[in-house]
């Protein structure tokens, strides 16, 4: 009886889901005037945003022909896990072969795979996959702490407002995106080096101890941030949300 009940409700849900997705697909797509041989990223991959929010920069993709020249008038559609919004969700490439869309991520923290696709002359589907990162509360807190306390040593990029200190350090720290190094350091070790400084892991004392300045919650938030942004992804980064 129970099984029967769940089967029925599953059926109802499937029907509901099907009718919903049907509604979504009824939008009319623009008619392509040209076809490409590849779709590539121009900009906008690997950005960070808070859950549910717009990415700071739009995603721009380009359609090229066999020779690598930009194709105008090819249709590009964007797709991702439910809850991810694209404005616009599709478009024809402009005179420089590009389509630009503003992306807002869904409500769960984690990685989102975004697919941009187009078709070639023989109606074969060409795909480009990009990854974007949604930060939850803890990772957002970590990001702010990183901006305030860590970034100027750990990030070699300078801006007018914030000159990086990276080049001035005799021992070079790693950017927190450097997954190849940071994924190998356990949470316990990360906590140790942030709390007690470089010497806690037999590393340079140029890495200061933060245990009397930052709270345990702060340090956990920093670690959550480090795990969230690492590339390649750390194992504890959670699932990647992709189109079903």
């Amino acid at each position: 009886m129970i099984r029967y009940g769940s089967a029925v409700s599953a059926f109802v849900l499937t029907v509901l889901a099907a009718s919903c997705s049907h509604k979504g697909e009824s939008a009319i797509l623009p008619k392509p005037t040209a076809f490409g041989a590849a779709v590539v990223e121009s900009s906008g991959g690997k950005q960070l945003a808070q859950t549910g929010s717009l990415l700071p920069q739009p995603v721009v993709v380009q359609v090229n022909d066999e020779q690598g020249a930009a194709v105008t008038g090819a249709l590009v559609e964007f797709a991702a896990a439910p809850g991810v919004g694209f404005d616009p969700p599709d478009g024809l490439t402009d005179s420089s072969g590009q389509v630009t869309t503003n992306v807002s991520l869904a409500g769960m923290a984690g990685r989102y795979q975004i697919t941009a696709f187009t078709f070639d002359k023989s109606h074969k589907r060409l795909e480009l996959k990009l990854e974007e990162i949604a930060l939850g509360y803890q990772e957002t807190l970590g990001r702010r702490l990183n901006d305030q306390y860590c970034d100027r040593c750990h990030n070699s990029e300078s801006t007018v407002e914030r000159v990086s200190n990276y080049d001035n350090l005799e021992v070079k720290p790693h950017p927190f995106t450097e997954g190849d190094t940071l994924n190998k350091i356990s949470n316990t070790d990360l906590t140790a080096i942030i709390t007690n400084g470089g010497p806690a892991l037999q590393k340079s004392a140029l890495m200061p101890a933060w245990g009397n300045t930052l709270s345990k919650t702060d340090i956990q938030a920093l670690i959550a941030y480090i795990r969230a942004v690492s590339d390649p992804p750390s194992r504890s980064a959670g699932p990647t949300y992709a189109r079903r």
Partner: protein
Amino acid sequence: MKEKLTSLWQKLFGDPVRAFGVVSLVFLLSLAIAPAKNYFSEWRHYQHSYLRMIRNRSDANTLQRHFQGGIHQIWLPELGVVDRCTSCHVGLKEASLTDVATQPFRKHPVVPHKLDEFGCVVCHRGQGAATTVAEAHNSTLAWEQPILPAKYIESSCGQCHRGPMLGTPQLNQGRALLKREGCVHCHTIKLPDGSPIQPNDDPPSLEHIADKTTREWIYAWLRDPQSYAASATMPNFKLSDDDARDVSAFLMANSAPLAGDRAKITAKPASDPSAGPSLYGESFCASCHSVQNAAGNLVGGDVGPELTRIGSKVKPEWLQAWLRNPRSYDPGTAMPHYRLNDGQVATLSGFLLAKTDSDLLANVHLDPATPEQIAHGKRLVSDYGCASCHEIAGIKKPENFAPELTRIGSKPITQLIFLPGMQHTLPEYIAGKIKQPRAFSPGLKMPQYTLAPAQIDALTTALLSFNERSFTLPPSLAVPGVPESDYQPAGKAGKLMSDLACFSCHRISGHGGDMAPDLTWEGSSVQREWLVQFFKNPGTLRPALIRRMPRFNLTDGEITELTDYIMTVYQNPAVDRDSMPLSGYPQGQVELGRQLFYGKYSCQGCHIVDTKTDKGYIGPTLTHVGSRLTAAWMYQWMKNPQALRPGTIEPNRAMSDEDARALTAFLMSQKGGAKQEIAKK
């Protein structure tokens, strides 16, 4: 037909026994409806799928043990919470379920509060007591709340937390924008403690506007403020040509010349064409004012107005009088009185007046105003509520010009009028109103702002936090923000400090800006002689800073006045300035300090003591620190920097007394020797 029914009746109820049987069957079936509904309920379906999902996991046994079937409920009477969400969201507290992608089973992400203490709807809104997905998440009836979209979730933090927090950047930004964009000039927003939010955009008075600019400029500005300065705060009121003509006519006619010293400057600007830009640079005007560069980017601060086209706006005599002493035109301005001499005023005004845009006023041709136009302009000025922001002679600041927004975050949807195609939710409504207010009705007065999508989201987040719950929550849960203090220094020195607008950049005792160091304990921290020299010739202590302290051409008397005041009043009771000597530390202790500096604490990562070897760029340069700071301050700073300057990024190293003393000894020996060596070479 009738016969058929009669025969059916006869068949069913003709015989009493049969009738009893039929009636019992009907009863039985109707009794079965409730349990059947229960069996087919959504939450039961989700609990079954949850059990199926965990069956294949390595921690199946633990998860199974934690699982409890049935409806779950979190009941928090003092918060008005009856939340059954956990009936479907079964795994919210399961630490291992962070890797689950299928909802509703993922573990709740880490937040500072416990589920059992706050429930779900306090943050997420929605119908806590509902037991179906649709009712819990989507209900939009007047007395109900749909789930809050994730992008506005920080609004819920703002219900209790009234001040900015590190983990809620969007809420902080939204609250700051409400003040900075001047929303609260027209819309009253009262915080639960009864205090209204105060704007901080400081719109100029228009009582003497004819001294400052021309009618043509006012006309162009009214038509489109952003065409004069992309960064302009004033929104676009979308006035017609005629309306802009009449408002500009009224403002000019209504302006009274300012009494006071208007003597024309006879001094000539410096002949060297680079003198203007260098005076602009040396005076650090760019710390507060921005100018568009060739690439179209704004470079500079946003405390004062953008100056890209200033030459097309201001009258030369006004600019010179302003540069000579801005306070005589606007006593409350954030701009310092620089004490420039006439030559400098001529040079700087010449440089600024050359920043023109010939397109701006090219098509503006206004005939002399008629009395009817002026009268119509005055009516428009009242109608649009200009005096909500600007002082205008003869027009009172209107009370409650626009709807109060104190409880906008729980406004019932039945009271809202939506645009076609809009989702019928409160956040959509608020965001839509900010984005395009006049779309809701062409007759509305709310002007058009130029805001980025992220700014609209931030403002919506802040507005959603002003809701019923923020008023009804138990007072013990409210976390007040730190109110801006109204600290004002006293006496002659206090007058001097407001003349120099120190508080535009520096903070003292909770009042003032955050561009430059907090000076609350400056008297304990620095040596007197250093301070005197610094006023005469301010340099920067931080190599990577682009904003610096300007030089103010102070007289010796003024410098003495300021220094005396700072040295006596801005004293930290925990730092006894005279408890440690400024020099004469034993060589051994200095040497130990040097080792600690370069070894154990590796201070050279952020600071420079020896310009030949050290490169650290984050903290102040310490080459002269022994002639700048007091030893007692330095010692206390080593022990606990945050106790002296809350929020400083210098890490607290919990140093032993011995280490702190040795480092103090080493640093006090840094009296600028290295620089002299360089000079000798």
